[in-house]
C-alpha cells in the first residue's frame, strides 16, 4: 500500500463506512497529506457520478422488486439457520442476475460509435444488419423481407435509456410484399452483443437476458468471405444467400455489405467494451 490511491480507506471514508476511531485516524492523515486529499476528492466524484447515473437510469439500477428481495433477505439474515443459507444465496443470484442486463445492454450505445474526427454522421457501413435475414420462416404467406423497424420500435430504441427494458424486446412484424414491397436495413457495425452474450455464458454462468441477444450483432461479430462491393455500390449478394422457398412460400434472402477498404472502419470510434 505504497500509493495513497491504493488505500481502501479512501473509499470507505468517502462512503461513510469507517468506524469512529478509524475515521479520526484517517482524518489526521488526510490533514497532513495533500495527495491523499486529492485522491479522496476523486473517489468522491466517482461515487457521486455513479450514484447519480444509477438513480437516473432504471435500466442500470436495481428494480424496486429486487431491492425488496434484498431487504427481505437481509432482514432474515440474523435468524437464518446455517442450513438455510444456500437457498438464500441462490435467491441473491437470481436478483443480481436480473439486475445485470442493464450493464450489458447493447442497443443504446450506438451514439458512441460516432467518428473520432468529430463527424456528426453515424458510424460508417461495414456489414448490413442481418436482422431482416433471420426472420422465422413459418408465419408469412409470401416471400418477404421483414421490415427493419417500425416507427414505434425506433421510438422505443430512442427511449431505451428511459423506459425500455430487455424484457419487452420483440420481433418485428411481418409485412406482405404485396402491401409494402420496400424494406430497409440498418447498416451498422455493432458487434457488442456477441461479447455480452459470451460474457454472460462463460464468465457469469448465466443465460443472457432475451433482449441482450441481438442476432445481427452476433452475425456481424465474425468475418465472412463475402465479395467486396464494387465501386459505387453498397451491397453485394453473397453466394449463399438465395431464395430458398420455405413453408407456405416464405423465403430467405440475403444481402451483405463489406467495405472495399478498411478506410471506413478506421473512421469509426467504437467504444464497445469487448
Amino acid at each position, binding site marked *: 500500500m505504497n500509493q495513497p*490511491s491504493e488505500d481502501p480507506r479512501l473509499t470507505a471514508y468517502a462512503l461513510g*463506512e469507517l468506524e469512529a476511531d478509524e475515521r479520526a485516524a484517517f482524518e489526521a492523515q488526510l490533514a497532513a497529506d495533500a495527495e491523499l486529499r486529492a485522491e479522496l476528492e476523486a473517489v468522491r*466524484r466517482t461515487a457521486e457520478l455513479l450514484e447519480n*447515473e444509477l438513480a437516473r437510469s432504471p435500466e442500470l*439500477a*436495481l428494480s424496486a422488486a429486487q*431491492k425488496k428481495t434484498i431487504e427481505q433477505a437481509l432482514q432474515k439474515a440474523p435468524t437464518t439457520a446455517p442450513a438455510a443459507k444456500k437457498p438464500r444465496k441462490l435467491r441473491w443470484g437470481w436478483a443480481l442476475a436480473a*439486475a445485470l442486463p442493464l450493464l450489458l445492454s447493447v442497443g443504446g450505445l450506438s451514439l458512441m460509435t460516432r467518428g473520432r474526427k*468529430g463527424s456528426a454522421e453515424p458510424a460508417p457501413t461495414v456489414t448490413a444488419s442481418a436482422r431482416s435475414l433471420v426472420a422465422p420462416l413459418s408465419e408469412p404467406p409470401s416471400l418477404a423481407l421483414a421490415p427493419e423497424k417500425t416507427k414505434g420500435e425506433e421510438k422505443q430504441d430512442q427511449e431505451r435509456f428511459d423506459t425500455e427494458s430487455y424484457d419487452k424486446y420483440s420481433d418485428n412484424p411481418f409485412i406482405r410484399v404485396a402491401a409494402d414491397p420496400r424494406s430497409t436495413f440498418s447498416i451498422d457495425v455493432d458487434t457488442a452483443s456477441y461479447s455480452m452474450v459470451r460474457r454472460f455464458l462463460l464468465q457469469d454462468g448465466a443465460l443472457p437476458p432475451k433482449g441482450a441477444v441481438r442476432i445481427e450483432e452476433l452475425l456481424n461479430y465474425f468475418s465472412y468471405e463475402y465479395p467486396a462491393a464494387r465501386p459505387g455500390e453498397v451491397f453485394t449478394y453473397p453466394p449463399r444467400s438465395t431464395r430458398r422457398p420455405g413453408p407456405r412460400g416464405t423465403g430467405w434472402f440475403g444481402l451483405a455489405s463489406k467495405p472495399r477498404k478498411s478506410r471506413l472502419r478506421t473512421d469509426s470510434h467504437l467504444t464497445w467494451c469487448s
Partner: protein
Amino acid sequence: MESPDSGPASRVERQQALGRVECALSELSPEQRQAVILKFSGGLKYKEIAEVMELSVTNVGFILHSALKALRSQLSDAGQELETVRSAP
C-alpha cells in the same frame, strides 16, 4: 447536471454520460459490478453487501475501492474522448 427535459442536446449528452457509465461498469469483474450496484443503486452498507455476497467486510472494502478506481480511470478516458469529439469543428 442538466435537466433531462432541456432539449435534444442535453439528452444526447445524458445518453453519452450514461453510455460511459454503462460501458465502464461492464468492464468490471462480475464481483465488482455486483458490489457497485448493491452499494450505489441498492444503498447497502459494506456489512450488508458482505452478507449478500458472502464475503468479509474487508473484502467488500477492497472490491469497491478497486472498482471505483477502475471506473474512475475509464470514465476520465472516455470523457476526454467525448470532449475531443464535441469540440471538433
